[in-house]
């Protein structure tokens, strides 16, 4: 156990504490001297509209990803947990995008989204020319285009976790409810949903945390553009540190991100585990 703790301390614990400390200094990443400046970096953040926009963007993306990805994942899981003949092939198939390098899927979608790319060609081919868009170039649309890629890629991941939950439900319970005359919707709500509670908890936690840390897809497709419309906390942290040499400011934003992740996921965890207990 000690070697495990040593690795963990070296790469996560110690640097995280250091990061928390740098956020209260004026360090530029080059000069050997750091001065304690208290909350100055956080004050700067309040005046920085770009950083404030990134907070909003990150939260919007995390909420949208969590809701849509889990809804699709659950529907897919119910679909492949049925008696259809293609269920085994489809399970492997729907999870496959989650395996592909996000850099690759993001770049593929960047091409699909191009003004003369595959998506607009497809819309043209089926007579929906009016629906053609500049998917990544339109500031009102770009974030949702990026979010759609994440959902496309990770719905299968949610599906697999829901499927594991569904398979732990004994078939007799389901059949008993059917014999008692419960329709599919009521059977789902009163029989399946309570027993799926652990899977729901894990899925919601994973997608919220993943959504708050969103980086790869944004970086490949838009680098935060157009005009900062898709900048997330992670892209701002990267830009401030490695493009503008604002190391201390960058770690202050990382502290904000950490607070968001810890607060949101603990509140969520408390709520969900209470739901689990109530339904158990």
């Amino acid at each position, binding site marked *: 156990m000690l070697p495990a703790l040593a*690795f963990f*301390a070296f790469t996560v*614990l110690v*640097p995280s504490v250091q990061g928390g400390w740098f956020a209260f200094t004026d360090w530029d990443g080059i000069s050997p001297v750091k001065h304690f400046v208290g909350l100055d970096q956080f004050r700067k953040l309040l005046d920085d509209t770009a950083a404030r926009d990134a907070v909003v963007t990150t939260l919007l993306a995390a909420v949208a990803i969590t809701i849509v990805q889990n809804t699709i994942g659950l529907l897919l899981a119910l679909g492949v947990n*049925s008696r259809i003949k293609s269920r085994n092939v489809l*399970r492997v198939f729907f999870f496959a995008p989650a395996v592909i390098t996000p850099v690759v899927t993001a770049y593929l979608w960047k091409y699909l989204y191009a003004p003369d790319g595959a998506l607009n060609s497809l819309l043209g081919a089926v007579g929906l020319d009016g629906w053609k868009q500049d998917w990544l170039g339109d500031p009102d649309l770009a974030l949702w285009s990026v979010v759609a890629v994440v959902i496309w890629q990770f719905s299968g991941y949610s599906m697999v976790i829901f499927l594991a939950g569904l398979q*732990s439900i004994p078939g007799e319970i389901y059949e008993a409810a059917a014999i008692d005359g419960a329709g599919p919707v009521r059977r789902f709500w009163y029989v399946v949903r309570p027993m799926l509670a652990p899977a729901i908890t894990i899925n919601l936690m994973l997608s919220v945390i993943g959504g708050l840390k969103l980086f790869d897809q944004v970086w490949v497709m838009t680098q935060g553009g157009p005009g900062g419309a898709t900048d997330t906390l992670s892209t701002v942290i990267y830009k401030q540190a490695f493009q503008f040499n604002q190391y201390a400011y960058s770690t202050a934003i990382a502290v904000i991100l*950490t607070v968001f992740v810890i607060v949101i996921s603990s509140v969520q965890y408390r709520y969900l585990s209470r739901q689990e207990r109530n339904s158990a």
Partner: protein
Amino acid sequence: MNRYTWRTAGLEAVMIAVALVFAFPVYVLVSMALRAEGDDSSPIALPNSPTFANFGDAWQRAGLGPAIGNSLMVTAGSVVLIVALAAMAAYPLARSTRRWSKSVFAVFMLGLLLPFQLALIPLYQTMRDLGILGNPLALIVFYTGLQLPFSVFMYTGFLRSLDPGYEEAARMDGAGPVRAFFSVVFPLMRPITGTVVILNVIFVWNDFLTPLLYLSGSGRQTIPVALFGFIGQYVSQWPMVFAGLIIGVIPVLIAYFAMQKRIIQGFAGGLKG
């Protein structure tokens, strides 16, 4: 209840239709990669005269050979270390009822929450000071530390649901705790080891931000960063770039298809624990 009805057939049709929608981007990826130079047909049409020439070009110009080598080394090294350390750490955590065991477990679980963006910059400094920036070995250390909490979590959950009777039998036959672990417990953990391996392989192989920072300028890139640089250089030559993307994901797809059964089983075990 086990009849194949018209409703089942309807559901089957809907699910296959959804699968085709999901597959559309992959269809475009493959059909573009097979396109000959000067083939300007619509991006959604099949290539006029399919060719594999793009794959050869991409392989040479993107330096994919060395990048795959680096990725294989980093992935294999990290996953072996993760499995060994996580399994050995989880054993006392799952079995001991003392108070320190609870606190150590809580410290590991904190690691599941901390976003590594916070550690990214200080660790960059530490690595620069130690002179290991740009060295793929440093990435192995990094991934091992980063992925231990998740792997310890999976192993501990599995061990708690595993009957301790087997180890006790081994102990009665005179095996010490170390021997009991290696000859009895570790083999029993095979199913969860499979899951931990495949999920970590996917994570390490695909990670982009870390090698982008810690290996930048070293010329010893892993696959995602090599592809990112390649894309930037040949931005308008879509067919060749797409061929490069396909080459870059083939190894992880092979690992996935070889081990896909473990994924659902592993999650099922994790949910119970």
